[in-house]
């Protein structure tokens, strides 16, 4: 009898002891040997050495799977539906993030054990990661405000200055924008490579989403302004009519100062890092200034799969990129990438007084510019079907610019008409 009691007591105490020891080792050691699967649209985590940093800090391995943007949802949704091979972290790009966070497959990041703190983030970065009920499902480490990237050589030749504030004053309103475009055209330069590129600005400035909470169609009047401005740009010979992302459109950025014909391109932060720094002939010939109104383009929000066996590991990654201010600072200083954490951004803005790391902006502090314009972003018009309907609107714009649709009101009617065909279940 006594022996049995003793055995039980010893067993019980040792079990308790083991539990205590196990729960104490919360550090990186507990992730050793584990693999974190991330499904993303870009390999920037690898190229920006984030994977390297994470693997070193935790001892875990990262399996980064990349799928092109256009196929991302087609790849992700069947995985989520079958529950097979689902990545621990999946993402949503701005154009469809509202779809991803509303699938009911992401963890609530504001609750324990995550307790994500977004009070230092830009309002829109926080808002985009929330589902229709306002629950925080995804976080981003980036903020992607946009700007007018213009050629200093052309600015000097036409306007006599390349100072971003002075040039910005010439593009402060859409009327100013068009007036400056006329001046450029009269001197034989193009304001933009394509009038349709303005879409990225206007789509981000919508105040209402395409479908409201009752699935009723609403077309923000700013789209009408978009069509008006784009038509004036096209009819005034201010655009070079180059197909977006086509080879000649890309080449328009890569011409040497002196032989450049296109004054400006509209890009967000990642345009600077992923596109412009590859245009070797024009490095240093660019400055950036504001467009009428703030806007954003793209951005990636990270979700934790609700049924992932590696939630703690996934959170460790997301925490490192969005909550760990020391890492965010280190990452930003290394890459020049603009962050979603306002406090860190304001701390380090002075570090970029010599300009962006690749020298594209010829010494202009890109961080200071993005800091100013990020505050102006209002993403209340974002909707789950942005990618599809923005594409639809751009297509109608093409027909309108070609003169096939007689008036801007007819163009708005055509947009509604096509949306009716493609979304017959909504109300109009």
């Amino acid at each position: 009898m006594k022996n049995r009691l003793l055995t039980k007591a010893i067993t019980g105490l040792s079990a308790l002891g083991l539990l205590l020891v196990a729960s104490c080792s919360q550090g990186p050691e507990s992730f050793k040997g584990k693999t974190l699967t991330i499904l993303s649209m870009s390999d920037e985590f690898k190229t920006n050495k984030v994977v390297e940093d994470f693997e070193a800090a935790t001892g875990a391995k990262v399996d980064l799977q990349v799928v092109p943007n256009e196929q991302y949802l087609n790849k992700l949704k069947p995985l989520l539906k079958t529950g097979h091979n689902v990545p621990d972290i999946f993402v949503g790009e701005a154009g469809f993030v509202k779809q991803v966070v509303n699938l009911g497959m992401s963890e609530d990041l504001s609750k324990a054990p995550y307790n994500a703190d977004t009070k230092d983030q830009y309002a829109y970065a926080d808002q985009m990661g929330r589902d229709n009920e306002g629950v925080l499902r995804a976080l981003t480490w980036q903020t992607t405000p946009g700007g007018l990237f213009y050629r200093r050589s052309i600015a000097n030749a036409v306007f006599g200055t390349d100072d971003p504030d002075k040039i910005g004053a010439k593009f402060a309103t859409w009327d100013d924008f068009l007036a400056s475009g006329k001046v450029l055209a009269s001197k034989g330069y193009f304001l933009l490579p394509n009038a349709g590129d303005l879409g990225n600005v206007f789509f981000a400035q919508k105040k209402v989403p395409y479908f409201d909470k009752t699935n009723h169609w609403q077309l923000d009047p700013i789209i009408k302004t978009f069509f008006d401005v784009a038509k004036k740009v096209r009819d005034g010979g201010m655009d070079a009519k180059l197909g977006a992302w086509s080879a000649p459109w890309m080449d328009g950025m890569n011409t040497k100062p002196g032989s450049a014909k296109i004054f400006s391109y509209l890009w967000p932060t990642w345009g600077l890092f992923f596109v412009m720094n590859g245009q070797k002939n024009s490095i240093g010939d660019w400055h950036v200034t504001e467009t009428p109104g703030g806007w954003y383009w793209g951005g990636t929000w990270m979700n934790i799969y609700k049924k992932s066996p590696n939630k703690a590991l996934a959170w460790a990654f997301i925490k490192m990129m969005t909550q760990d201010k020391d890492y965010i600072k280190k990452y930003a200083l290394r890459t020049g990438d603009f962050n979603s954490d306002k406090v860190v951004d304001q701390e380090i803005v002075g570090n970029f007084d010599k300009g962006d790391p690749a020298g594209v902006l010829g010494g202009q502090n890109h961080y200071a510019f993005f800091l100013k314009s990020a505050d102006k972003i209002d993403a209340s018009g974002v909707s789950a079907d942005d990618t599809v309907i923005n594409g639809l609107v751009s297509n109608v714009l093409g027909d309108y610019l070609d003169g096939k649709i007689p008036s801007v009101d007819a163009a708005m009617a055509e947009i509604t008409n096509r949306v009716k065909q493609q979304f017959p279940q909504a109300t109009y």
Partner: protein
Amino acid sequence: MKKRNYNAYGYWFILPFFLVFLVFTAYPILNTLFDSFTNDSFSNFGTPAFVGLKNYANEITSSLFWKSFFNTWIIWIPNIVTQMTLALLLAALFTNYELNIKGKGIFRAIFFFPNIITITTIAILVYVLFDWQSGAINQIFFGPDKKEYINWFGKGFVIQMIIGGVQTWIWFGYTAIMLMAGIQAMPKEMFEAALIDGASGSKIFFRIILPFIRPILAYVAVTSIIGGMQMFDLPWVMFPGGQGGADQGGITMTVYMYARAFSWDQNLGGGSAVAWIMFALIAIFSILYLRIAYGKRSSDEGVN
């Protein structure tokens, strides 16, 4: 004397095919049929509910569906006419008894070559060649004067002609080879007899060769109908997202089906309904064609 019956083994040998067929062809087809009667959606993971014929009704009354239907035909008809003419001409030329062209094998390979290139490559090529401001086509026709350049992709009709033209380019070689094979299977005595009787080249072609290769013409036409009505890859790569470019001219029926299911309102039930409507349409047109083509033949044989 017991004779071993080997018949049963036959069933084992054909079993793998039927298993694969059931799993990868029959089951998905039936699943699509069931799905078309539900409100299955690609945008949420709820359990699909039965909605009866609502999807069919919606699609048949959709103006965009019928636009895609006509788009598909406008792309296909000029394609098949040009393709057949070109293929018949080449087949006649290369099997001509008198001309007896050497090096048929090399020519066959050259004609077939476009068929081997991946469609994505071709789409990019087309996109670059017909580019408004810098495409080679505009430069060849109009020289350096950019004001004269034509915006090829600015008109839905031109988009359709380009897609149809590319299809002709891809398939004319295959069709020509099929027809050449058919003509070469004809007994040589027929040609010799015709020549002795003094028949001219064109009479031989229209009175002897064409009637003889009618089955192959039917095969080529029907497979072309099926392939043409399923035209997807080229328009989708050129105009991703199912918006179809200018005048929505690049929206073919399959593009419509795919976009309905995975792109626009992500209505999987609707996409499934479109798939079955397309099946019905293709079947009707194939049967119609065969009736016209074979109908004549059986009446001819009746006379004989």
